[in-house]
């Protein structure tokens, strides 16, 4: 008879047996008819009789519905009465009812991980026509599971402590919403923004669809609220440069870029900005349409309202002379010696809300973006229409400052274009183009707007009504077709396109052309995804764990997504996803410790040779090198040690292990060989 050789205690106290004495097994086999679903194809009574003969099986019964209340009760009763050491439920897929039956087993006093499901519905009765062969297959499947269960180990769920502090990366509307939701629930938040101010793209917008309320009027109070919230620690002009650890226990490194202005002492009086002689720098916030000084705040309502020095353009940094700002600053807040600093954070959950960029339109040479000053993109039009913009809300041509009498809007300039742009629909352009046409009609009376479109995609609350208003009340002329060329002639921009509904080519003499540019991921999104440890799609948008059922979780446990970093989104969708992420974070923080399935690798340290093949194989960096010391504290050898918090239980390391020291709880070598032998 084989005896048990317990391996040394695994780091989290699980004990996996390399050899297990199965002669004392008392397995209960419960065969479910699932009404007619299984019963019609598989002869359950015959199956139960056959299983009853199998060595180690103490009970084998069939029943109409084991998942029903009386069904579960009968399983529990059988466990108690027969002192069962393991349970096999031959029924539907484990994806259906594994949790149900494991709970039932636990209630009857049996370790829940001593219960396995034999899938004789989805993978047998539903897919086979011949009852005899189906019964034979069901017997094989069930027997194989019985052999596995005999070698199951009494596992314990793993508990990992949770640091109740969240990190939100990105201070646009999605990041602010997530941070506020988490903070308002009483949990600490660190909000990191890489620009000098909160606000993101939403702060740049003029009015928002479909209500036409002023974007800054709804955005800036949110920014202030986030900055002043006692539970939120705000880090602007900062970048996340490293993420280590795992759900509940992330270690994050943040780079605080040098502002050259001490934010502690600076009051934001703005004297330095007014006196700065270097005034002709292109303003990023105004998308190049306005100018700013070298020491600046991106816009008047910046949060925090503390200036920064643009090192690349500052006269002092370029020539070594100037320091006007330092001279005028009464608080001595200017410090030209400032260096980048790094800070370390401990957080339990991360919300990634890094947003998007607009596509570079210069790929469309035929539209003349970059060549003609009056061909602008949608975001630039927002700045023109914004009361805080370079023209104080007047729609004026960037070239000569005149009011345009005719404007052509070109939709899908980049979106839905596999040849030059991106294949996806950017989702918001139909709506903002309609909004632009309306704002233009309201601000320039008698102005004529022409919109070239492919389809009007206005799905959303109040959205279709909004585009109808643009057409009916504000007389936007929609032309279904594409534009082939834009060129300059006698001070006008000639737009040649086609009206497919009339089947005729059209040429429009316009004063300004606005391109509804595609939303694309941040240029460094893919690199950033690698820093954080999440997946991304072919474009660089971050991947959700499941497109339909887990749309706000990334594939890495404890990291959530919000806003346009996941896919093009409008403001309501971004806010909704941010709140959803926040609720996921709060659910995570509702417990002191996390429980998870104990399907993790364990290492036998006595046989481990320390070849580190497993370290190479592990996708999660879950395997660490551990020193084995003797009594005097001398290192005898170094072995692999699996961190159960990081291990996700794929088992790649197990098949990699040269000395057979690693094994995977729940899917041990012995269990799988037994399954094969049982077939």
């Amino acid at each position, binding site marked *: 008879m084989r005896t048990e050789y317990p391996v040394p205690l695994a780091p989290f106290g699980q004990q996996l047996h390399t050899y297990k004495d199965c002669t004392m097994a008392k397995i209960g086999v419960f065969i479910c008819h699932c009404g007619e679903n299984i019963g019609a194809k598989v002869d359950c009574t015959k199956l139960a009789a056959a299983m009853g003969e199998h060595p180690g099986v103490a009970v084998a019964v069939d029943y109409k519905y084991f998942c029903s209340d009386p069904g579960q009760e009968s399983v529990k009763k059988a466990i108690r009465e027969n002192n069962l050491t393991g349970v096999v439920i031959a029924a539907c897929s484990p994806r259906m009812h594994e949790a149900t039956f494991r709970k039932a087993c636990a209630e009857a006093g049996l370790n829940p991980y001593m219960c396995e499901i034999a899938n004789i519905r989805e993978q047998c009765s539903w*897919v086979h026509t011949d009852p005899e062969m189906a019964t034979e297959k069901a017997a094989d499947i069930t027997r194989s599971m019985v052999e596995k269960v005999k070698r199951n180990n009494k596992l314990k769920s793993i508990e990992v402590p949770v640091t109740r502090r969240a990190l939100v990366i990105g201070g646009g509307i999605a990041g602010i919403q997530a941070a506020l939701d988490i903070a308002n629930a009483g949990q600490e938040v660190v909000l990191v923004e890489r620009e000098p101010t909160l606000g993101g793209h939403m702060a740049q917008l003029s009015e928002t669809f479909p209500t036409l309320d002023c974007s800054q009027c709804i955005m800036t109070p949110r920014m202030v609220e986030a900055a002043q919230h006692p539970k939120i620690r705000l880090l602007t002009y900062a970048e996340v440069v490293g993420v280590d650890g795992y759900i509940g226990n992330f270690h994050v490194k943040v780079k605080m870029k040098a502002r050259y202005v001490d934010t502690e002492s600076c009051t934001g009086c703005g004297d330095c900005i007014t006196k700065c002689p270097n005034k002709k720098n292109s303003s990023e916030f105004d998308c190049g349409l306005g100018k700013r000084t070298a020491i600046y705040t991106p816009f008047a309502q910046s949060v925090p309202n503390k200036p920064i020095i643009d090192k690349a353009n500052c006269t002092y940094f370029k020539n070594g002379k100037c320091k006007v700002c330092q001279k005028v600053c009464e608080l001595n807040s200017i410090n030209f010696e400032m260096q980048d600093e790094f800070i370390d954070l401990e957080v339990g959950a991360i919300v990634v809300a890094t947003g998007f960029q607009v596509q570079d339109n210069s790929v469309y040479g035929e539209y003349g973006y970059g060549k003609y000053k009056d061909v602008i993109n949608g975001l630039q039009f927002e700045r023109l229409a914004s009361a805080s913009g370079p023209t104080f809300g007047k729609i004026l041509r960037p070239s000569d400052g005149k009011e345009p009498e005719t404007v052509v809007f070109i939709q899908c300039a980049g979106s839905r274009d596999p040849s030059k742009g991106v294949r996806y629909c950017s989702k918001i352009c139909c709506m903002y183009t309609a909004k632009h046409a309306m704002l233009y009609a309201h601000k320039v009376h008698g102005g004529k707007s022409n919109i070239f479109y492919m389809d009007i995609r206005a799905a959303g609350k109040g959205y279709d009504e909004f585009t109808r208003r643009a057409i009916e009340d504000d007389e936007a002329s929609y032309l279904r077709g594409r534009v082939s060329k834009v060129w300059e002639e006698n001070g006008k921009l000639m737009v040649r396109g086609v009206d497919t509904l009339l089947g005729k080519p059209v040429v429009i003499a316009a004063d300004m052309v606005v391109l509804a540019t595609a939303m694309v991921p941040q240029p460094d999104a893919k690199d950033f995804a690698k820093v954080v440890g999440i997946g991304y799609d072919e474009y660089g948008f971050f991947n959700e764990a499941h497109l339909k059922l887990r749309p706000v979780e990334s594939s890495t446990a404890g990291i959530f997504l919000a806003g346009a970093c996941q896919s093009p989104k409008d403001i309501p969708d971004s806010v909704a996803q941010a709140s959803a992420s926040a609720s996921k974070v709060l659910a995570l923080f509702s417990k002191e410790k996390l429980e998870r399935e104990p399907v993790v690798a364990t290492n036998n340290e006595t046989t481990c040779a320390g070849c580190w093949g497993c370290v190479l194989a592990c*996708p*999660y960096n879950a395997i660490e090198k551990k020193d084995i010391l003797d009594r005097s504290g001398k290192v005898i050898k170094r072995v692999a040690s699996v961190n159960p918090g990081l291990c996700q239980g794929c088992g790649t390391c197990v*098949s990699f292990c040269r000395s057979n020291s690693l094994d995977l709880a729940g899917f041990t070598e012995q269990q799988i*060989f037994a399954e094969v*032998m049982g*077939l």
Partner: protein
Amino acid sequence: MSEPFEPKIIAFVCTYCTYAGADLAGTSRLKYAPNVRIIRLPCTGRISPMFILKALQKGADGVLVSGCHPGDCHFTHGNYHARRRWTVFRALLEFTGIPLDRVKFSWISAAEGAKFAEFMNSVTEDIRKLGPFDQYKELIKETEAPATL
């Protein structure tokens, strides 16, 4: 032989893609050959070549390994490890004289129930054409090495 030969095939699949694909074939009530027995694993990366050899030793006429498509692995790159291991393992199979046709490797996602059913049929047909895998059984008989655990 009057009755057609019914091969016994053992499949090692990952729980996230192919096992879910098999479930989908079930919920879609697709019909396929009942010759394949599935063993569920967390990831194809968990599949050791020893499992395949064990299955053949146990008397399987064919073995198949199936997981997530490249790039879709739930565990980011377990399937790449499986693929690499498979290319090396093929050489070993060739060396030992086990026909490569008896071991199949494929990618079937959780959404490909129909592909799963088709694949089961085609594999069964292929193995049926090859006939029973007597070669290995003969060998076991010769060496009198009993196929026990």
